[in-house]
């Protein structure tokens, strides 16, 4: 369905391009929800913007690799160019529902604007279709809310409008870049339920970017863990939660509070993620890793299979389940 192959996104600065993501690869099947987890600055947002054809400036560009939608290369096409060649199957929702809607345009008009581009051939009345979409994302009083301005709506409602705009583009794949981070917890779970429900109803795939393992556990079918611009581990969600193998993934789990072990302090991963200009050779996680040995500090890393669909980029994978090795 959507296939990302060796995607390297770089900032083109003075002498040498700095790689924000390094050879990121993953596939999303029909109806699948893939969660991408990682801390801030690990390149997950840039990956999603590259997939969307929305990299923010000329200085940040796809250096190598491809994004394929049903086998067609869409890597270097912006959304409007994708419409022209009939390859507009990717929609996106963003982290900040408060700032992602045009403040001086009624929300109905913002949905209809997308419909006029993507729903022209269907011959559907855009008004009626907008109301349908608002019903679909569970906005009460659709007819009235169409005339609202964004500032008149709550954060959760705005994110629903964003989803309606994304759906107006008839997506095969919805890219969701931390769509619940800015919302409070009850609203967050409503939005997550909505996304799952829409996946089932519209049989679309979802690429869900987050830093929150809890959200991944709730929603995703499969997970990619990213660190310093690379995918370090990928597995289906139960595999990853029961049997993480990469020390970084282990580290993420030990940062989670566990109600059963309230007395124990959380164990943060020591050190800091490396800066773009200062990514160590070999394994980027080596300086923070408890299991590090000499071979980790140079050369290329193995991309080893641990079970079907479970791979990790590590010389010293920890097998034997969560909590092991620490």
């Amino acid at each position, binding site marked *: 369905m959507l296939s990302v192959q060796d995607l390297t996104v770089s900032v083109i600065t003075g002498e040498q391009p700095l790689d924000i993501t390094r050879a990121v690869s993953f596939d999303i099947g029909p109806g699948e929800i893939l969660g991408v987890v990682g801390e801030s600055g690990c390149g997950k947002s840039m990956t999603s913007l590259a997939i969307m054809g929305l990299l923010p400036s000329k200085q940040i560009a796809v250096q190598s690799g491809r994004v394929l939608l049903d086998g067609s290369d869409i890597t270097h096409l912006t959304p409007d160019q994708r*419409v022209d060649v009939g390859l507009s199957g990717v929609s996106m929702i963003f982290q900040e529902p408060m*700032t992602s809607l*045009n*403040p*001086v*345009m009624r929300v109905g008009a913002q949905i209809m*604007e997308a419909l006029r*581009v993507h729903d022209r051939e269907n011959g559907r009345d855009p008004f009626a279709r907008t109301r349908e979409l608002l019903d679909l994302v569970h906005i009460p009083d659709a007819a009235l809310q169409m005339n609202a301005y964004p500032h008149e709506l709550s954060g959760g409602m705005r994110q629903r409008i964003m989803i309606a705009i994304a759906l*107006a*583009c008839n997506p095969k794949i919805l890219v969701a870049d931390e769509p619940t981070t800015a919302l409070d917890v009850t609203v967050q779970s409503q939005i997550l339920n909505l996304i799952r429900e829409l996946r089932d109803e519209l049989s679309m795939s979802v690429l869900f970017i987050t830093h929150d393992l809890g959200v991944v556990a709730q929603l995703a079918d499969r997970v990619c863990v990213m660190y310093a611009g690379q995918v370090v581990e990928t597995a289906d969600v139960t595999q990853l939660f029961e049997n993480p193998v990469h020390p970084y993934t282990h580290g993420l789990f030990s940062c989670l509070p566990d109600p059963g072990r309230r007395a124990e302090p959380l164990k943060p991963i020591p050190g800091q993620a490396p800066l773009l200009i200062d990514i160590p050779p070999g394994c980027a996680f080596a300086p923070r890793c408890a299991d590090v040995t000499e071979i980790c500090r140079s050369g290329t890393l193995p991309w080893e299979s641990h079970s079907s669909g479970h791979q990790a980029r590590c010389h010293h994978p920890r097998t034997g389940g969560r909590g092991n090795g620490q």
Partner: protein
Amino acid sequence: MLLNFFTSYAMRRTGAAAVTMAAASVIIFAFIHLIPGDPTYVLLGDGATPEQAEALSKKMGLDRPIVVQYFTWAVNVLQGDLGKSLFFQAPVLEIIADGAETSLLLAGITMVWVVLIGIPIGMLSATRQGTAVDQTASGLAMLFASVPTFWVGLYLILIFAAWLGWLPSSGYPSIFEEDGLYNLRYLLLPSLALAAPNAALILRLTRASMLDVARQDYVRTARAKGIRPWQVTTRHIFRNALLAVVAAFGFTLAGLISEAVVTETVFSLPGIGRLVVQSILRRDYPVIQGVILIIVMLYLTINLGVDLINRYLDPRVELE
């Protein structure tokens, strides 16, 4: 319902403007009493006898209690009577009306230039950020924003009136005289001189504001919809950038009032600006008072207009 919100907002703002006007009128009225010493002597000159001074004082009503004086004056003003010019011996309102045609036309034509030059070139500059077009436009804008109006005026006279002889260098005979609207050519150079710094300002503001809006999240949302880049620019970027530009029009128009004083003097135009200068030199206090009153009124009206336009353009402006 929306219209009602708007009407209610408009009424409140108008009410607030009326209160400001009333407060300003007190200050303007007090103006004549701020003149050091006895105003009658200032008006009559040093050689006046006490009898003359007293006669004038009586004539002007200066011997009555100050509150009574204010209300008499205010009632007269409300009836359109701004008093009589000491120099012209004619009603102040008539004298101001004589200059109003020139000044209003000058301001109007100037604003047309400002809009026609500032906004489109600012947009072009923003959409071509960093190119030769942008750098030329920004450089020229910087230049014209920095040079004084009178300097631009003098150069325009030198080039288009003295060397090329295409346009008249001074005066303005009114569009109701012979030649009708063709007389507007007299205002071409003055309006260009007056427009230069203001158009430069609006150009820079349009450019900066568009570049700022272009970075907003909702512009990314608009792009993600797959609409054309020009639609992103006009519907999303420009529409939002306009808010800041319209707000600046208020200041620009208000600034025109003071800049017009200089321009009208350079081009010898019979406008309100020159009237102020000459009245100050002649110590014609009723005229100065009247002109200030009119200017305050204009200023408040312009600001009210800008507020209302902004409320219309930006639904977030609350009914405060």
